[in-house]
């Protein structure tokens, strides 16, 4: 019932173990991220052959810079999806934080304005967390609601106009090292922090347990509501950071900023192997998913494909990733 190489391991699965060869056992031989690395390399080779501009340092920095904000937000989103939760409000919440910053910076100290904008992000995370854990509304619906609410509020604050911000370009555009923009370093720091959080902390492991089996998590003493609440707060915090970077890059707060960001984030997370059924996924996978999307977008631009088609490609990629996840669920639950 198990592979011969498994049997030779000494201890033998019970002879009555259920039928076919266990795909999970075989799959473990190869890291799950191997397929993603392969796709990424294949894309790299393809675009290198098709465009002379692809394979150079500056272009790679471009890819990373374009992925930075999405990546900063995709890290907590990965943790949330592992626990079976979604945050769709990320795009409008990021725009809202930018708008808060811009409107405060008109009459206030910039540091104070940044501080309040970050608090706003955390506040949105707390609101989402409260609605999901205490009121008990499904996360998809909750954050779909807050998505609309904060996009609307952003327009209210900015009066529908792009509001410029002075003396705030450093966060988004300075290049402290190797000619790489600061957001890329922040992105790397956030990714590293969440990688550590997911692997080495009780909080991170609890996220996996909650996603794998909410009822069992509760019966094993995991305080699921707290953990999920904290997950949304972390998401809010990272959304604020992302929103500030966007505002800084643009030098202004736009009411349409980060429109559709949730699509990019969810695509990267699912492409990275986080399961819609919960309990599976990794930060490393999400980062690879992100790079695949980034490389694809970058390559399509270099090949002069219209940006309208990029949106089509991204949607198709999301559906492909989810189909792949479904296939895997079906294989592993046999």
């Amino acid at each position: 019932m198990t592979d011969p190489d498994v049997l030779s391991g000494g201890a033998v699965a019970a002879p009555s173990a259920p039928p076919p060869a266990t795909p999970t056992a075989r799959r473990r031989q190869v890291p799950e991220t191997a397929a993603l690395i392969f796709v990424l390399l294949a894309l790299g080779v393809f675009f290198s052959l098709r465009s002379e501009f692809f394979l150079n340092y500056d272009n790679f920095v471009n890819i990373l810079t374009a992925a930075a904000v999405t990546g900063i937000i995709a890290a907590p989103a990965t943790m949330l999806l592992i626990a079976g939760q979604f945050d769709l409000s990320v795009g409008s919440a990021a725009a809202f934080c930018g708008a808060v910053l811009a409107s405060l910076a008109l009459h206030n100290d910039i540091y104070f304005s940044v501080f309040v904008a970050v608090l706003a992000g955390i506040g949105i995370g707390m609101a989402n967390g409260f609605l999901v854990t205490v009121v008990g509304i499904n996360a998809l619906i909750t954050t779909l609601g807050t998505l609309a609410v904060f996009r609307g509020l952003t327009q209210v604050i900015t009066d529908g106009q792009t509001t410029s911000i002075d003396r705030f370009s450093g966060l988004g555009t300075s290049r402290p090292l190797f000619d790489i923009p600061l957001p890329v370093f922040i992105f790397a720091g956030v990714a590293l922090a969440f990688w550590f959080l997911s692997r080495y902390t009780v909080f991170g492991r609890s996220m996996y347990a909650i996603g794998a089996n909410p009822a069992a998590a509760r019966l094993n003493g995991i305080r699921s509501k707290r953990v999920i609440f904290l997950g949304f707060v972390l998401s809010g915090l990272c959304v604020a950071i992302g929103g500030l970077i966007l505002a800084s890059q643009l030098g202004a707060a736009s009411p349409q900023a980060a429109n559709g960001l949730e699509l990019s984030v969810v695509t990267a997370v699912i492409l990275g192997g986080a399961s819609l059924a919960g309990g599976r996924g990794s930060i490393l996978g999400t980062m690879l998913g992100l790079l695949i999307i980034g490389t694809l977008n970058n390559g399509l631009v270099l090949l002069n494909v219209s940006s309208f088609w990029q949106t089509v490609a991204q949607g198709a990629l999301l559906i492909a990733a989810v189909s792949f996840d479904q296939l895997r669920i079906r294989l592993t639950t046999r």
Partner: protein
Amino acid sequence: MTEPFHLQAKAIRKSFGGVEVLHGVDLDAVGGTVLALLGENGAGKSTLVRILAGDHAPDSGEIVVNGEAHAVLDPIGARTLGVRMIFQELSDAPALTVAENISLGRWPGRRGIVRWREVRERAVRALDELGVDIDPAAPVATLRIGERQAVEIARAISDKARCLILDEPTAALSAQEVERLFLAVRRLRERGTAIVYITHRLDEVVQIADRVEVLRDGAVVLEREVAGTSRAELVTAMVGRAVGEVARPDDAGIDGTAAPVLSFSGAASDGAFADIDLDVRGGEVVALYGKLGSGTAEVAESAFGLRALTAGDCTLKGAPHAPGAPHEAIAAGVGLVPADRQREGTFMVRSVAENLSVPSWGRIARKGLLRRASEARAYKRWHDELSIRSRNDPEQLIGTLSGGNQQKVVLGRWLERDSDVLVLIEPTRGVDVGARMEIYRVIRRLAREGMGVLVATSDYEEVVQLADRAAVMARGRIVGDLDGDAITTERLTELAGG
């Protein structure tokens, strides 16, 4: 009716992924008789009957129905021949009414317009034939589980089923519901239906079946009339070795003077139980036995923070114990092994090591940091002690272990957590006979290490094989206490039935 219906499977072979799970199996189902198909989990029962129902195609062999041979059956072909299977997981449409469910997929009518009167009449006829009293207009979701099963059987009858395959039909039923099911099965037998009854409960074989066929490791090891076959013979055939039938544990009998670790006095919870006085001492296994719905599981849940007491007291190690949630109960030193392992016990897509250490994370971690090495240590320690059969890889997914070994991991959790009291609800439901004995050994070991163990169960054989003391419950109250060798299947059933 002239000839009785006759379904034969001949020399059926079937492989999955290169491993043969049926090695040339025969089966005879004759109209007007009940054939019990007995075997442990994984013996091939389900595969065999799925082939009969057309769900799987056999690799070789044939299926002969009333003398006509078929190499392969598809689900529709099997249905046309009158072979119908009732799965353990009901396949009804809960939002629809009983009558709608019975006509589901074969609506009477013309040009797509349903004739509702006939839908209703059909339902009344089928339910009548079964001898069950269910309102055809009631939505199925409002029915009890036994009634829903009856509706599925009625659907099969109404679709002219001549051979009915029941896959462990009593697994989720209460005692009264089992009675009703048996009545229905006997009625169908009188009508000339051939019944294949899959089970691993021996008492059911004796009660309901005319013939019995035992499968082990994909082959038929015994096939004969039930009359004149002893339980010991059946067990030996199933397990492949002689198993002491419901023997008392040999290390039973402990110091009865020690102070209890868990104690209920006059405990009550609205609508579930009342006047519960019960002590569990460190080092003993106390069983709370009663039929499903008698309140045993609810008492167990109250010790784990899943249900609040509305009167009386509960103490843990002498201190008041009123946990408001599982995490409080765990912190106080109580562990729980829930009844439904898949839904509440295991994290299927996570590793064995992780499953073993979940409730101990708070302890293993330093300042919230958790190292895989410490999980692996916990794993190493219990893997051997509990003889968990696996690849001996801490990262192996628990979902790839057999049910019995998964349950050992769930038990091991509380050893690792070093709990003072362990509460188990139906600890061996869905576990096969061989693994059951091993789980009993593990539970006895937990007690020997000083844990107080409370087992809520509706399986009287389990009580005899496991418990130092037993309290029998009926309708939410304790109706009798048994001690040591006074715990016998006869006394237990007698008390619980009253």
